C-alpha cells in the first residue's frame, strides 16, 4: 500500500457519469433477470474480491484469540477462552507495554512536528522556481528514495554514518573524532527521523505541489496590486490555499499515530535494544510471533486498531466543527 499513495486518475470529470444507470423501467426488472444480464461482470469481479475478502476481512476473525489462552498446537477452535485476561497488560499498565506506548507517541510527535512540515517547505521553494526545467530535475532526484525499500535505506545510512562509513572515514582522515550514530540508543530517534525524511520528504511534496498549482493566480495578482511582497503573499495567499490539504493529512496522520515505522525499526532494533526502539507494532511482533505470547499480543493489536479507528472518527468530526471538509462527509 505504501507505494500506492498517489496515482493518476483520468482528468476529465465531466465524463465521470454512469454508463449503466438503470432507467425507470429497468429498475423494476427482477433480480433474477438482472443477474442473468450481469453475471459476466460479476464473474470478472470474483477473483479480486476473493483476495480482498481472504486477506482483508477474513483475518478479522483472528482477533478472537485476544480473548483466548491461545496455543498454536491447539489452534483457534480448541484453545481455551480466557475472557479479558489478555487485556490486563493494557489496563494494568505492564511496564514494557507502557514503554512501547511512550516510544510510539514520542516518535509520532516528532513526525508531526518535524517530518510533516518539511515537504511543505520544499514544495514552497519548488513552486516558487521560475524554471520548469530545474524544478523537474530536482523533482526527479528527490522522489527517488521513496522507491527504495527500508532495507536499502537502512543499509545506505549505515554506509554513510556507520563506524567505517563515508562520514567517519572523512572525519578520521582529517583528524576529527568519529561520530557514533549507528547502534547508539541515544541517537536512535534522530536517526529514525532523518531516515524518514530522506526517504519520503521528496515524495510528499507531490501532493502539496499539486495543490499549489491550483491556487487561483488572480489572488496573487490582486495581493501584489495591493502592495504585498513575496513573503506576505506566501503568508496570506499560499498558506491559506494549502490549509485544507494540511488538515486532511493531519487527520489521516492522527489515525496513523499509533503506527510508526515498523519495518524501519524492526531492521535496526537489534543494534539499539528495545529501550528506545520498541513501539506498539514491534511489541506485538516481538511478544506474539517471536515470543509466542499470542493472545496477549493480539489483545494489544486489537486495542491499538480500535483506538486508531476512534481517533480517525474523532478527528474527522473535529475537522467538520472547524468548518473543514475532512476525509468523508457524515
Amino acid at each position: 500500500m505504501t507505494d500506492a499513495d498517489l496515482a493518476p486518475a483520468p482528468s476529465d470529470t465531466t465524463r465521470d457519469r454512469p454508463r449503466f444507470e438503470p432507467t425507470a423501467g429497468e429498475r423494476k426488472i427482477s433480480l433474477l433477470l438482472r443477474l442473468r444480464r450481469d453475471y459476466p461482470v460479476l464473474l470478472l469481479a470474483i477473483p479480486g474480491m476473493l483476495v480482498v475478502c481472504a486477506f482483508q476481512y477474513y483475518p478479522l476473525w483472528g482477533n478472537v484469540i485476544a480473548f483466548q489462552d491461545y496455543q498454536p498446537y491447539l489452534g483457534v477452535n480448541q484453545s481455551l477462552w480466557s475472557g479479558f485476561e489478555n487485556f490486563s497488560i493494557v489496563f494494568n499498565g505492564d511496564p514494557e507495554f507502557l514503554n512501547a506506548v511512550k516510544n510510539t507517541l514520542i516518535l509520532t510527535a516528532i513526525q508531526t512536528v518535524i517530518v510533516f512540515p518539511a515537504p511543505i517547505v520544499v514544495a514552497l521553494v519548488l513552486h516558487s522556481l521560475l524554471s520548469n526545467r530545474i524544478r523537474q530535475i530536482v523533482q526527479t532526484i528527490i522522489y527517488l528514495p521513496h522507491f527504495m525499500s527500508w532495507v536499502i535505506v537502512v543499509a545506505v545510512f549505515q554506509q554513510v554514518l556507520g563506524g567505517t562509513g563515508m562520514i567517519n572515514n572523512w572525519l578520521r582522515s582529517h583528524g576529527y573524532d568519529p561520530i557514533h550514530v549507528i547502534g547508539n540508543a541515544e541517537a536512535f530517534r534522530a536517526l529514525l527521523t532523518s531516515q524518514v525524511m530522506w526517504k519520503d520528504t521528496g515524495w510528499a511534496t507531490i501532493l502539496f505541489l499539486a495543490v499549489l498549482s491550483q491556487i487561483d493566480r488572480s489572488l496573487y495578482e490582486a495581493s501584489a496590486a495591493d502592495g504585498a511582497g513575496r513573503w506576505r503573499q506566501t503568508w496570506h495567499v499560499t498558506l491559506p490555499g494549502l490549509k485544507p490539504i494540511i488538515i486532511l493529512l493531519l487527520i489521516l496522520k492522527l489515525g496513523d499515530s499509533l503506527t510508526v515505522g515498523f519495518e524501519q525499526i524492526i531492521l535496526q532494533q537489534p543494534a539499539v535494544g528495545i529501550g528506545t526502539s520498541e513501539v506498539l507494532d514491534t511489541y506485538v511482533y516481538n511478544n506474539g510471533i517471536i515470543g509466542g505470547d499470542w493472545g496477549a499480543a493480539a489483545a494489544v493489536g486489537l486495542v491499538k486498531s480500535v483506538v486508531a479507528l476512534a481517533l480517525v472518527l474523532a478527528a474527522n468530526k473535529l475537522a467538520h466543527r472547524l468548518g473543514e471538509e475532512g476525509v468523508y462527509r457524515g
Partner: protein
Amino acid sequence: MSAPNHRLGKRQPVLVGGMPMPGRTERVLKAVFLTVICGAVVFPFVGVISTSLASPEEVIRAGGFVLLPTDGIDLSAYKSILSGGTVTQSILVSGFITVVGTTIALLLTCTLGWALSRRGTVGNKPLLLLVLVSLLFNPGLIPSYLVIQQFGLLNSLWAVILPVSVSAFNVIVVRAYFVGLPGEVLDSARIDGASEWKLFWYIGLPLSKAVVAVVGLFYAVGYWNSFFGALLYLSDSSKWPLQLVLRTYVVNGVEIGAQDLGGGSEALPPQTSIQMAILMISIVPILCVYPFVQRHFAKGVLTGAVKG
C-alpha cells in the same frame, strides 16, 4: 496586471505568476537549499556505486569506503555474487516474486476495477463499498499470520505474493480510469455482440495503457522490495528474496564466505565491495524502472491526488 491608481507614484514590480520577481538573496538561498537536498539524495548512491566498482586494493587502502575510484573499475565483487550461491539464488527468488506477483496483481486489480466500473449492475454498490472500507483498516499482524497459517501458505512464496495482490487503492484508481473511458466505443462493441471479457481485454485495457503501466510499476516495485512478508512467512532461507539477504549480509553485517558464493576458491573481494555490490543489485532494477514511473506521475498524480 494593470496598475491600480492609488499606487501610481510608486514603480510597479514585475509580476511572474502573480508574484513579484524574487530578489537576489532569495534566489541564492533557494539554489543552496535545493543543491543541499539533491546532494543529500545523490551522495550516498554515488558512494555505494563507487565502492562496489573500486578495486580491492583501493577499498582496503580507504578503510572501507571509496567515493571516487581512481584505480579503474573492478567487477570482481559482482562476479563473485553472481556466480551462484546465496545471493544469486535470492535474486532469482525476487525476480520470480516480482514477475509472477505483478502479473497476477495486475490481472486481479484490472478485472475487479473493470467490474466495479460497470455501475448499475447487480451488486455493484455493495462490492465497491467492501473495497472502499478495506482501505480504512489493517487486519493486523497476528490475525494475518493466523490466516496464512490456516491456508497452509507458511514457507511458501505465495504467502508473499497473494496477500498484497489486490491493493484497494489501486483498484479505485483503475476503476476511476475505466469509468472515464468513452462510453460510445464500448456501447458500439456491445451492440456488435462483444462479450464482457472481450470488451475488457480488447477495448478497455488497450485504452488504459497509462494507468495499467503506473499501477503495474507500483506493484512491481512493491514486490521487488518485499521484506517483512518474507521475514514473517518464509523460514527456509533458500526461499529468501534479495531484501532478506541484503539485511543479513549488509544491515546485520554477517560475514559472507566462499561457501555462500558458490564461486571458485580464488581470493574473495573485500567484504565492503561485496556488500556494496549486493546493495547495488537491489537498487539497479528500481533505477531502471523509475524513469517510466516518474514520467507518468508528472501528469497523472497531479489531477488524481487533488481530486482524492
